[in-house]
């Protein structure tokens, strides 16, 4: 269900035999032969992927397809069984300054005693380095980042007092603080309100128009075509990757979701036919 689709032009299959990268350094994220296993059970298998620069890229696949794992493996957060992931031509540890990561909202404890501004300022920590404190200039930048996501008025509110959408905006503002070229986002649209969803989309488009590359784990098939220029369909292996118009096909979705898709479609149809 996977290999045949790899023949698509979009995934640059020509480099398989090369032991070292030969992709040009401007490729924001190049993954070769990546395999990740938890407790000897493979979660990602033989991933080969080149993400083009300046694109808004969606990662789409069923639950447990390894979407989050893919991002974490690229960031050295979980060990790789084999293969490598390069960011602008170098391993992640040499490219930290060019990457911003937005983890899933549930990955942290929102009762932690900090306010929104504190969390956003964390985006400046790499620039500051060990021992140095957040200074006035970085605080100002953090306020600006909060303004860009539309919640500057909540800067001093403790994070547990924020709604889910506001918490997600705090995470996005923190990523903006990192002033990166590549943004890796894990389900930023999960359980947010409509206003926040629109704000995130606007933000992603703006980043993209500035030449930044955004890689976004996404769940909602209905919005894929309107949000993303480029998509990666994944289910343990790369099923297909390329421009959304060519890649987001019924056939590819069938391969990605297997039997589950028809169920989803039926549900969607049922919803559509229900008069509101």
């Amino acid at each position, binding site marked *: 269900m996977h290999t045949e689709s790899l023949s698509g032009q979009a995934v640059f299959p020509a480099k398989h035999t090369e032991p070292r990268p030969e992709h040009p350094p401007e490729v924001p994220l190049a993954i070769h032969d990546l395999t990740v296993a938890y407790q000897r059970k493979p979660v990602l298998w033989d991933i080969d992927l080149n993400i083009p620069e300046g694109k808004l890229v969606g990662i789409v696949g069923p639950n447990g397809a390894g979407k989050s794992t893919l991002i974490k493996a690229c960031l050295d957060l979980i060990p790789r069984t084999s293969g490598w992931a390069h960011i602008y031509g170098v391993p992640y540890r040499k490219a930290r300054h060019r990457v911003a990561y937005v983890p899933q909202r549930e990955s942290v404890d929102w009762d932690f005693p900090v306010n929104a501004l504190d969390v956003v300022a964390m985006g400046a*920590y790499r620039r500051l380095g060990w021992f140095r404190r957040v200074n006035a200039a970085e605080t100002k930048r953090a306020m600006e980042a909060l303004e860009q996501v539309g919640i500057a008025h909540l800067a001093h509110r403790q994070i547990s007092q924020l709604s889910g959408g506001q918490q997600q905006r705090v995470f996005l503002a923190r990523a903006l603080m990192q002033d990166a070229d590549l943004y890796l986002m894990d389900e930023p649209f999960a359980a947010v309100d409509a206003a926040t969803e629109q704000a995130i989309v606007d933000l992603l488009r703006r980043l993209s128009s500035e030449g930044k590359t955004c890689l976004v784990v996404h769940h909602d098939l209905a919005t894929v075509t309107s949000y993303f220029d480029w998509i990666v369909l994944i289910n343990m292996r790369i099923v297909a990757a390329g421009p959304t118009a060519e890649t987001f096909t019924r056939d590819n979705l069938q391969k990605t979701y297997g039997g589950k898709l028809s169920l989803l479609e039926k549900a969607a149809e049922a919803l559509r036919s229900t008069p509101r």
Partner: protein
Amino acid sequence: MWTSFDTWIVVVGSLCAVACALPGCFLVLRKMSMMGDAISHAVLPGLAIAFYITGTRASIPMFLGAALAGLLTALFTQWIMRFGNVDRGAAMGIVFTTLFAIGLILIRQAADHVDLDPGCVLYGAIELTPLDTVSVGGFDIPRAALVNGIILLVNLLFLTLLYKEFKLSSFDPDLADTLGYSSGFLHYLLMTLVAVTTVAAFESVGSIIVIAMLIVPPATALLLTHDLLKMLIIAAAAAVLAAVTGHLGAIVVPGWFGFESTTTSGMIALASGLIFLLAWLFSPDQGIITRQFRRDLAPPVPLSEPDTGTS
């Protein structure tokens, strides 16, 4: 009837309690409160082995032995979690009971020769600390005050220098790693601080009370504030308050019932618990009685607010 003895006991208790409360705040925030318990028990074999090797109760080897045992506890816990596929609580339970048992056996073996008795290990002997003095700059101060004072300074130093790093890695360890602040390194550094603090507190208050000092003041502070820095300060204040009222209580309270005075360290733990109870009941925005009171008096506040995004 308040003597310089009592003053020193309160000073030692306070230094001990504050030294414990500071790293304790991060244990509570990391949802690793029981790690303090585990480490405070598991340092025992480290102490015993250090004693076997060096033959003295000198501070430095004792600290090294204890710090090593503390680190091993954290390491073993991590390993058992990963390879045994069990949760952190279970892994800690396996590690610290085993290490504590080994420590007790080692101490029993040594007990015939030296003054390292299990009762002292469990409950401490804070009442005796003013007897063992050292001379610092011409003043005779209790050795326990000096040791706990130094540990408090060490903790203050690390938590001041690495405040931002500990905040980040406690809140979002993944982000810490991606930004180049190794959350593993910071975890083991914190565990080392806890282990060293525990050993210092050990002699004064014993291994059981240490857990109260590590966890209760920070838990109290968390009920009273939503700010990390304020939490650290309030925890330290609650720790001192517990030490003072604890010792007073140890002298006064048993008299009401016609008993001799009781152990100070036990009363410090009890005082911490009572302070926590007060915070739980009367915390300005989280106390259950305050909330009830406010609900009865205040007019209903409209829930909607002029925000974008509410979910």
